[in-house]
């Protein structure tokens, strides 16, 4: 009895991985072995980079039952200011990018925590503001270029290291630190968390600052890769990050079932799909069909419904 229960638990815990693995296997076969080649490593790394780092930050918010839809608009603004700073001195791009991002995150946090505005509304509103702001900051130019030398700082190795660090730090923070546990507690029952001495507002603001700071970090890496800041706001990437976390099995209501691995599994699944389907030259309309079906299918198979009385 006990044994079979334990077995069922391992299977349930393994399921999310099975989703990712089957996506990889199917694409590997469909592409005739072209997916997992050494040349593709860097492609995959670049595809997964924004997704996974963004998702790693987002999962903290989603554990609280919040989300940040202004991350990419934040990235665009941070990017513009970082490029302007880099024109003075390329090294300034890092502190300015992350600083601006964190600052915007703090504004989100204060509006959400102190003014009690739902995070969805807060960050949609902010992304309107920021989208306007980018173009205003760019003075109606489409883009501004950063110093050319920054392009040479970019390397796949650096990205792999950063990815690994973010994953490791994120995992430890989420599963083993006070911050992660507080986030889950807030998602589970905010009032009970407050009455257990959790400074709910502070935790929320800090988490928004983290997603903001991460946007700033991503802005810096975007400059390394593109050498430029443009007025475009990557709305699709924003929603892909959200989809990645959902695909990994985190529910938007958050709470104690949230797992950090969702960020990693979900973003890798998305990245493998993106790269694999291009390699297989799948028609773009069909690609979207497959994405939609996979999102629903994988979540159906792997969603952890234990302890959730009513699914939201």
């Amino acid at each position, binding site marked *: 009895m006990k044994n079979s229960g334990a077995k069922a638990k391992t299977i349930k815990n393994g399921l999310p991985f099975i989703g990712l693995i089957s996506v990889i296997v199917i694409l590997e076969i469909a592409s005739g072995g072209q997916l997992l080649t050494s040349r593709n490593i860097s492609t995959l790394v670049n595809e997964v980079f924004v997704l996974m780092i963004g998702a790693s930050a987002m999962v903290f918010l989603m554990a609280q039952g919040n989300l940040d839809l202004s991350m990419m608009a934040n990235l665009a603004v941070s990017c513009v200011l970082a490029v302007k700073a880099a024109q003075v001195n390329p090294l300034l791009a890092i502190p300015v990018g992350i600083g601006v991002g964190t600052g915007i995150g703090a504004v989100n946090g204060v509006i959400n925590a102190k003014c009690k505005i739902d995070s969805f509304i807060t960050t949609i509103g902010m992304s309107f503001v920021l989208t306007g702001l980018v173009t205003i900051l760019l003075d*109606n130019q489409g883009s501004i270029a950063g110093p050319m030398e920054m392009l040479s700082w970019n390397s796949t190795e650096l990205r792999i290291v950063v990815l690994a660090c973010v994953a490791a730090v994120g995992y430890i923070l989420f599963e083993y630190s006070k911050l992660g546990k507080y986030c889950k507690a807030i998602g589970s029952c905010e009032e009970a968390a407050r009455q257990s001495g959790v400074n709910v507002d502070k935790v929320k603001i800090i988490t928004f600052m983290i997603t903001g700071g991460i946007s700033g970090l991503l802005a810096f890496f975007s400059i390394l890769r593109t050498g430029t800041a443009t007025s475009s706001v990557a709305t699709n990437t924003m929603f892909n990050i959200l989809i990645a976390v959902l695909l990994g099995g985190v529910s938007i209501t958050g709470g104690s079932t949230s797992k950090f691995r969702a960020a990693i599994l979900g973003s890798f699944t998305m990245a493998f799909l993106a790269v694999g389907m291009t390699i297989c030259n799948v028609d773009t309309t069909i690609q979207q069909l497959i994405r939609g079906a996979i999102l*629903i299918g994988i979540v159906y198979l792997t*969603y952890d419904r234990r302890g959730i009385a009513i699914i939201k």
Partner: protein
Amino acid sequence: MRRNILIRIGYILIIPLLLMAIFTLASTGFSFASSYIVLSQTMLPLVMAFGVSFTFVVGIFEMSVGAQVILSAVVGGILCRYLGFPGLVIGAVGTGLLCGAAMGAVYRFLKIPTMVISLGMLMLFEVIAQALTKGSGYVSLESEISSMGTPPYNFVIAGIAGVLFYIIFHKTKFGHGIRALGCNDYVAVNLGLNNNKLKFKTYLIGGMFYGIAGILSICYAGSISAKMDLGSLSMMFPPIISVLIGLQLKNIVNVFPVTILIGAYSVTVLASGMIAVGLPAPMQDFVTGIFMLVVMIISTNSAKLGKLFDRRKLLNRLNKAAE
């Protein structure tokens, strides 16, 4: 009592009146006379907002609003070629209902979070609309039929939708059910409400309103284009803002369709007004965002502000007592 109601009505009209006053003063062309046009523009987001409010109130995350409206309009437009206006109505509303039923069925049988359903189904709906418009990318109507999207017909259609909405939301067992479920679904289910059935119906009825919105949308301009790559997402923002404002105002006057109308109207006035004062596009985004945040902050915290006021009064009284 009667006076009280008049004051309340005045209170909920503050936002649109204030916006109109500002824009009338700030621009040459915009005036209170423009309100008829603005009202006509409001009908589409309004009917979408009717659909959104059900999902919103019951606690479902719904992002496929735009995709459902587009798909309904596309199917309606195609059927219209064969059956005329009735074809449009049957096609659009039928498709809306089907979309809703599909989402409801996914919720009921696959038991996955509503956010996942909305994003996954959004992608599928976009693909279907895309496939149906293959060739031209859009569906257009003959101009006699598309005149149904202009006043006074659009007022009639939206009016019917509004009455329907009022009855369903305020006056039916279903409306009572979803409001109960929205408060606390765990307790509501404990009290015997059937969560799955109610959520299924919520999706279904939402879909019906998106179908009606589909009619307005294709008639309004005579054509509708399919969107891919989550391109339909942005259509959900005006109705959502409208519902949010509507929900806040509903605490003052408890007639939801009217307060949503005021919300939708405010959003439209803002958009037209900004064009009238010649704001460049980036500034328009900026102001829209700020407006949305400020309205939400003030309305959400007005009770708290009121309390602060009471607190001051109480303090004064205490001080006096101390003296």
